[in-house]
């Protein structure tokens, strides 16, 4: 597999909201290319018609009654927020 382009690395970094520096982009370009190149060995496997495994356990829906149960007091639930007001998380404006 050819080496990732710098543009690809920058695009992935934006998707992941990582705000990477130029030096990090260069480093990850080399490292991710090497890792993906190694992962290319999976192409030796014929997986035609093989179902994917998402979980080692058989998956099934788990239901419970929708009942009122004890919960954290509001102040405790908010205690780790970097910015809060009137029991609400304060965020930056999405729309100007």
């Amino acid at each position, binding site marked *: 597999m050819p080496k990732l382009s710098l543009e690809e690395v920058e695009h992935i970094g934006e998707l992941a909201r990582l*705000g990477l520096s130029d030096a990090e982009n260069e480093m*990850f370009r080399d*490292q991710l290319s090497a890792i993906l190149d190694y992962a290319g060995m999976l192409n030796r496997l014929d997986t035609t018609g093989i179902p994917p495994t998402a979980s080692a*356990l058989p998956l099934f829906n788990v239901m419970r009654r929708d009942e009122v149960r004890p919960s954290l007091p509001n102040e405790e639930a908010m205690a780790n927020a970097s910015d809060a007001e009137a029991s609400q998380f304060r965020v930056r404006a999405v729309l100007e």
Partner: protein
Amino acid sequence: MAEHQWLAIHEARTMLRQGKISSVELTQAMLDRALAVDNDVRAFISLQPEEALAQAQAADQRRANGEDTPLLGIPLAIKDVLCTRGIVTTCGSHILEDFVPPFDATAVAKLRTAGAVFLGKTNTDEFAMGSSTEYSAFFTTGNPWDLERVPGGSSGGSAAAVASGETLGAVGTDTGGSIRQPAALCGIVGLKPTYGRVSRYGLVAHGSSLDQIGPLTRTVEDAAILLGCVAGHDPMDSTSLNIPVPDYVSEMKTEAGIKGMRVGVPKEYFSGEGIEAGVETAVRAALDVLTDLGAELVEISLPHTEYCIPIYYLISTAEASSNLARYDGVRYGLRADTPDMWQTYYETRQAGFGPEVKRRIMLGTYALSAGYYDAYYLKAQQARTLLRRDFEQAWEQVDVIACPTSPVVAFKLGQKVEDPLQMYMIDVFTVSLNLVGMCGISIPCGFSEGMPVGLQFMGPALGESLILRAAYAYEQATEWHKQRPDIKSQISNTKNQVSAV
């Protein structure tokens, strides 16, 4: 009294029950030991001596009132990726450096109910992503057998604390070997339960289809005791199994032991590149012991073994990139404040995450992104099915599988930290069990270069009693688990060298 730190949990429990020791004495002995050696081992991110002694006092009071629970008054350490109510839970990351959870993880709550005393939170690779504990955002941990070497990871702090006598036992987490591998490298016992056996509620998520919580201890019996305390169904984790928890200790101590058990020896786990000769020699010698004990060794094949590393690193990073999207600086964790919403996200995550976490988020995001999903993520999931079939076929022939835990003994600090692919390769013998959701245990089986070697028993889903029985039989027939590292002379040597300079 100086030897309290080396007691097995089951021995300490007997002494507590007989009134030969109090929990306060036991806990103080652990804290004294930590004070003496942890400046050099650096196993703990945080110690809570006052809280621990208060819990010990409460445990002694409960015992005086006639109560007796499985871990009443037993001091333990907790890997710092499990939420502890009111105690900072960092995940070894700057992004959670000040995070104080308002609740206990279910496993922690169960240990509390069982009467355990919590000494502190142990070091880990950031978000449990690593195999040497060097990716902790705070500091590296030394291997008690050679402080210039790594303890393994990511539960390296837990393993080092147990191996250095700073705690009687610990809990860690295992996404791709993070309990078994540090246990092997530190010469102790580490058990990864079947996926779903232990609730993941309150465990800070890494790879949600792979993560399990389990014990790190100095004896197999102690691992059985701790597993019995943390296992079980939890309505707060929809993947936890609603199946009764057996009495692991009594199921482990059968008269037959390993006699008549069919033990699979997977040829791919002895021939792979990168397995050190000293490791192979020690594990093969252990297989001879199993034969002497009456086990029937059966050569088997797990043909997709060589694909484990790429399968694991595509799936685990994909899951991690999704799980770690939650760190946006809003509800908890670091926030780098800027006037702009997007810029706040970028700068928060840039400042809060270390290089290995960013690398894995990048790899996972790539594997999940449009155009690459089929080629990487889906392909890895299909290969995961093939790997599962390997194991299903193996269980038709054998009861348990025996193999090395790690291809290498503990390496020097700094040796692999700059080369991520090299670091990933170390997990070659452990990631398979996480991908197939089955259980495994690592126990000490010898030394190479003066460093411990681990023997791994793998078992089918819910086969914990089987692997415990095999491990217990081997342990009782050997002396490896009684070896102790000499930390004090390492510390005084360092001091002499410093003063000579």
